[in-house]
């Protein structure tokens, strides 16, 4: 009771009750390990968003010296050559940064008006993201830039070139004649090169984008499906429940990995296909969890009150019931994320994942050689460690979240 303060009227003022999620977050982030996991995952997401600026063969900027025909001019090869997906992700990263700043600023000056202003700010920013994203996607023309800027810079054909920290793209191969394939780590390639003479470090960083992208997008698809089916079955019950639960059983009864393999083999291996396939095969657990929660919640007084005020159904379901039943689903989604990363890596390892030359941790493991004859362990170490730590971080995070929302562990720790 240290927070008690005296108001001017000499009345003790109790501190405002903490919102539920603030309380959970405080419990969740108490152990150091969880903070480390969160930091690691945040860094990984940042890498996934910003990787074109970190590992790329083109310089940020350079000066093309004057020749007889034109004057010296400044060029921006990297930015000129970003794909529309890169631009959209960069805009998302910028918007996220703004959001974080706004959040941390407004927490200090909390109050209903500030809350309102924050919400309006969030809406505005989201709108800007959507408009900017669709504009970029519509206007941008991706072009193929096969110029080797490193050798241009070495031969003085461009000057003042500023290269990214890892000056290699994910698909850039060392020329075969140099004999730089399957290199051990060196100063030129910090983690060595693979069998095609591509930089391992650059491919590891780009692989983070595939792993995070597949993980998050597939789980968002799975969550959306699972929440809708779970909410409807749990709320209505009866014949609705019987029919939809048969659908759940249908999807559940086929072994997941076999189902995914079949889908991938039949419908193609574009990255979007893989995201959708993992999502569509992985929603049943969420549906079951939410259904059980809604069975419990649907007869509570506040739901009856909400129904009694004549609210539309979706508002009762998703505004009033969902926040009270969603926590076990979120815990499960943490494990689901870890599972999706593993599945994507396994698919790529088996050679049915994202298509080459796209960098994926699984395909990098596969290209570390046929383990029974030639095994280049340093090529397997990087992707293996990254998959391991990423999956472990998601799992630890999910488990800590489960402990944090579990009222039976209140007294402990």
């Amino acid at each position, binding site marked *: 009771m240290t927070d008690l303060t005296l108001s001017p009227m000499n009345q003790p003022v109790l501190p405002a009750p903490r919102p539920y999620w603030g309380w959970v977050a405080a419990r969740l982030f108490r152990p150091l390990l969880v903070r480390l996991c969160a930091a690691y995952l945040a860094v990984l997401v940042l890498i996934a968003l910003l990787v074109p600026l970190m590992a790329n063969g083109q310089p940020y900027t350079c000066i093309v010296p004057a020749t007889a025909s034109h004057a010296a001019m400044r060029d921006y090869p990297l930015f000129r050559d970003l794909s529309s997906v890169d631009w959209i992700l960069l805009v998302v990263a910028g918007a996220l940064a703004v959001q974080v700043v706004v959040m941390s600023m407004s927490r200090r000056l909390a109050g209903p008006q500030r809350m309102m202003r924050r919400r309006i700010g969030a809406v505005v920013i989201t709108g800007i993201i959507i408009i900017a994203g669709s504009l970029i996607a519509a206007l941008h023309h991706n072009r193929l830039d096969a110029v080797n800027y490193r050798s241009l810079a070495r031969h003085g054909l461009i000057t003042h070139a500023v290269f990214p920290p890892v000056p290699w793209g994910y698909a850039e191969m060392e020329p075969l004649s140099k004999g730089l394939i399957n290199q051990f780590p060196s100063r030129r390639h910090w983690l060595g090169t693979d069998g095609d003479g591509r930089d391992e470090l650059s491919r590891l960083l780009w692989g983070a984008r595939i792993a995070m992208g597949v993980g998050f997008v597939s789980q968002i698809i799975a969550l959306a499906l699972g929440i809708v089916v779970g909410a409807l079955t749990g709320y209505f019950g009866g014949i609705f429940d019987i029919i939809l639960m048969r659908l759940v059983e249908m999807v559940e009864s*086929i072994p997941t990995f076999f189902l995914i393999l079949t889908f*991938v*083999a*039949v419908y193609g291996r574009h990255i979007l296909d893989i995201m959708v396939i993992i999502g569509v095969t992985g929603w049943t657990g969420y549906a079951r969890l939410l259904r059980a929660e809604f069975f419990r919640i649907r007869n509570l007084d506040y739901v009856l009150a909400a129904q009694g005020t004549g609210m539309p159904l979706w508002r009762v379901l998703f505004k009033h019931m969902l926040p009270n039943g969603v926590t076990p689903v979120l815990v499960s989604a943490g494990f689901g994320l870890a599972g999706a990363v593993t599945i994507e*890596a396994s698919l790529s390892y088996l050679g049915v994942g994202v298509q080459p030359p796209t960098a994926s941790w699984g395909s990098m493991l596969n290209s570390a050689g046929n383990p*029974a004859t030639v*095994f280049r362990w340093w090529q397997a170490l990087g992707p293996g460690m990254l998959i391991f730590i990423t999956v472990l971080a998601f799992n*630890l995070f999910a488990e800590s979240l489960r402990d944090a929302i579990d009222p039976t562990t209140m007294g402990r720790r």
Partner: protein
Amino acid sequence: MTTYIIRRLLLMIPTLLGMTFMLFAVVRFAPGLTTSGGQFSSGIMQSRQAQKQEQLIMERRLHLVDKNGRPINLAMQYILWLKSTCEGHLGTSIVYQEPVLTLIEQRLPVTLTINAIAMAVIYLVSLPGGLITALNQGRLIDRGYGFFSLALYSLPVIWLGSTLLGFFANPQYFNWFPSAGLHSTNTGNMTFFRYIADYLYHIVLPIVCSVYGGFAFLSKQIRGSILENLQQDYVRTARAKGLPESTVLVRHVFRNSLLNLITLTGMSLPGLLGGSVIIEQIFSINGMGRLAYTSTLSRDLPVIQDLALVGSVLTLLSYLAVDICYHLADPRVIYD
């Protein structure tokens, strides 16, 4: 109870119908449906006539054309396939030119033995692990075991598998274990015990890979149910009447906690038969998982359809078996 079983069996019918429909749709609407298989049996030497004949037979088997070679529409195809499957005729593989049932008969024992051994190892570690961590709840050993088993669970099998193979079955480093297969080439002139020893020697690495991820889940479940049981009244009664603590734990708490194991074991039964695609692929074991993988790659439709069908029937049946066994083991559990 009988009513319950009958109701469950009846509810399985729409599930299976929907499942077969889904399978049929997925496979039939796939671009590039192939019927001209026989890559292994029929060579290039075949005459054009014979090839055409073979393709016609394949199409007949898949119910794509009728007796006179006229195409059948999709709805009829589905019904015909369903009919022949219900009569117990599984399809014939396009690639291997063998009935799917024969393929399953060849592959199932391989997968089953490996998975049974792996499962035994998992239980042997997880049961004491769960008991010890439950009794030391919150202490260092509990947290350490929890973290360690979660780390093992997170360890990707594609990495550990290929690294184990790369270091311990590789002339480049340590050539301790065989790199592929389940038997040496000269099994014919081995005595029985030599044969078993040879087999065990071959499955060391695959077993390691299929075992290590299973500890976390099982020990966590056992730990949870032991903790739950420790708070029951009967434990206090048992202690109050002066039973030694070991008897209370082993005879009362542990036995009651094993009830949950029925569910867990039942749920893992389909996986036991299914086999792991990745492990079988890494260690070149010709089991069910590898059959599924190669058939999806070569688009061997009858095999894909029938494997998924058999798998899901087994899954549904084992879920039912779980509920029945639960009732048998604990008569307090009654289904309406």
